[in-house]
């Protein structure tokens, strides 16, 4: 476990004191809170300078300001918003399928070690196979439809969910199971009162990687499987007509989408698995 037994007072105890109580109010402006902005600012400055100095041709890399305006206009009801929405929709749908099909299976496999061992190789193998390598296979089955993109993304995400849920159940703290057992819990009670909860931490790792995986595959599929919409489609389209401003704006919005999904899942995780790391 990460927390050492020496640690007497869990960090949460003082954090939960009423806001600001016991902490010195800082009289000067907290410059430290601006630190996270330093990296992005530096990047934008470097970007700007390299374009202005002619190091990189403006046709290959537009100025940051132009790109950001395109992004802003595109997202504020412009052409990007629809593609953003389509990609989000496909990602969420693929992810939802993965969760509903993957979580029960993962927990089931994890609670039956023999079952898990017998499919462990398959899971590890397909988990190691780049899901994008399977796109042609899915093309054969589903054609170039919308379902194809969702199906392949769901498949890639599903493997991650199954694996992590199973892993979480298998690695449940033996002593907590023993504690329930000694109190007279039946196998079913141990399963629902201990195993499921114990597995949540690992399951959430799985869910977060799964949603990222779903987004990656959806965008790739939108690029290469005859698509009419989606951020992947937008990026490749803009590239082909050398509309680099739009291309970078679409790339950035895909980044924003991925980042927001990650933050959202971290929030949910902290809410549900409140004991994590304590």
């Amino acid at each position, binding site marked *: 476990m990460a927390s050492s*037994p020496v640690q007497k007072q869990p960090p*949460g105890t003082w954090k939960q004191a009423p806001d600001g109580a016991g902490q010195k109010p800082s009289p000067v402006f907290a410059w430290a809170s601006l630190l996270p902005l330093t990296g992005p600012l530096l990047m934008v400055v470097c970007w700007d300078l390299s374009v202005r100095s002619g190091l990189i041709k403006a046709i290959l890399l537009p100025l940051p300001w132009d790109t950001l305006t395109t992004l802003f206009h595109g997202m504020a009801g412009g052409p990007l918003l629809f593609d953003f929405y389509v990609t989000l929709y496909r990602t969420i749908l693929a992810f939802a399928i993965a969760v509903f099909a993957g979580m029960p299976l993962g927990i089931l496999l994890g609670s039956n070690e023999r079952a898990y061992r017998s499919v462990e190789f398959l899971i590890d193998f397909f988990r190691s196979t780049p899901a994008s390598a399977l796109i042609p296979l899915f093309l054969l089955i589903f054609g170039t439809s919308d379902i194809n993109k969702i199906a392949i993304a769901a498949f890639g995400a599903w493997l991650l969910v199954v694996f992590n849920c199973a892993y979480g159940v298998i690695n449940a703290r033996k002593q*907590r199971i023993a*504690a329930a057992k*000694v*109190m*007279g819990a039946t196998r079913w009670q141990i399963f629902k009162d201990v195993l499921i909860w114990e597995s949540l931490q690992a399951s959430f790792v799985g869910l977060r990687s799964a949603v990222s995986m779903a987004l990656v595959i959806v965008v790739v599929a939108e690029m290469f499987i005859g698509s009419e919409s989606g951020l992947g489609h937008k990026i490749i389209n803009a590239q082909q007509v050398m509309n680099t401003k739009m291309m970078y704006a679409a790339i950035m919005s895909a980044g924003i989408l991925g980042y927001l999904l990650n933050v959202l899942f971290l929030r949910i995780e902290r809410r549900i698995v*409140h*004991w994590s790391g304590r």
Partner: protein
Amino acid sequence: MNRVLNAPVFADIPKTRFVPGPPGTHITIRGLTKYFAGWPLYENFDLDIPKGQIVSIFGPNGCGKSTLINLIAGLIPVDAGDILFDGKSLKETKIGYVFQNYREALFPWWRTIDNIAYPLKLMGKTKAEVDRRLEALVDSFEVRFDLNRYPYELSGGQQQTASIMRALAPEPEVLFLDEPFSALDYEMTLFIREKLQEVFMQTKTTMMLVSHDLEEAVYLADQILLLTKRPTSIAEILHYSDSRPRTVSTLSEPSFVSTKKRSLEIFQREVRK
């Protein structure tokens, strides 16, 4: 030609008859056998645990002190042997167990109070019954911390107090304690030790305590069970009968000092063997 050639080479050994322990015995252990990786840890081990007393288990490292109570509590399956509680099987007996590592004993996904109530819910008690029992427990432990917090928000001593309350909630016939103090600081150790003594005086619950601290083992015990190195057998059982409540001054009583000294002698003799 009546002779049997290549007759099987085992003799038909009759199963030993079950010999009950002396009157007042609570747990009867007969022919307990447990192998680990092909090596015997316990072989044909017999033991009687008296009812309504505290038995401290003490012995050399690796002799299987914790394993013994885990075998009795059913956490580790036995290879052979009978363990009976007042003639009943483990299934028919209510037991409580306190682990050394309180961090991994409580369920952090529930509030502390729900952790303590869990064994009662498992027994199918109604909400009213559960509440009544919890109230009695909280009163008898004089709890000074908020049980509505999550276990990880409590200090180590508070968590271990909660673990003991959980173990005692269903009013168990036997309470097992596996080095309950060794992860605690000295202050908490003293506090919980006194609580345990109080609870014992109130309820007379049979207790089995594994300890690596001789003073604490003798202080709480009616009997000190001293074990040998593996394959483990009983080196000696010492009786210590000073009246309760035992206090700090008990620690300097001649009877306490001599029992502790005798235990240490036996322990050292066994370690050197």
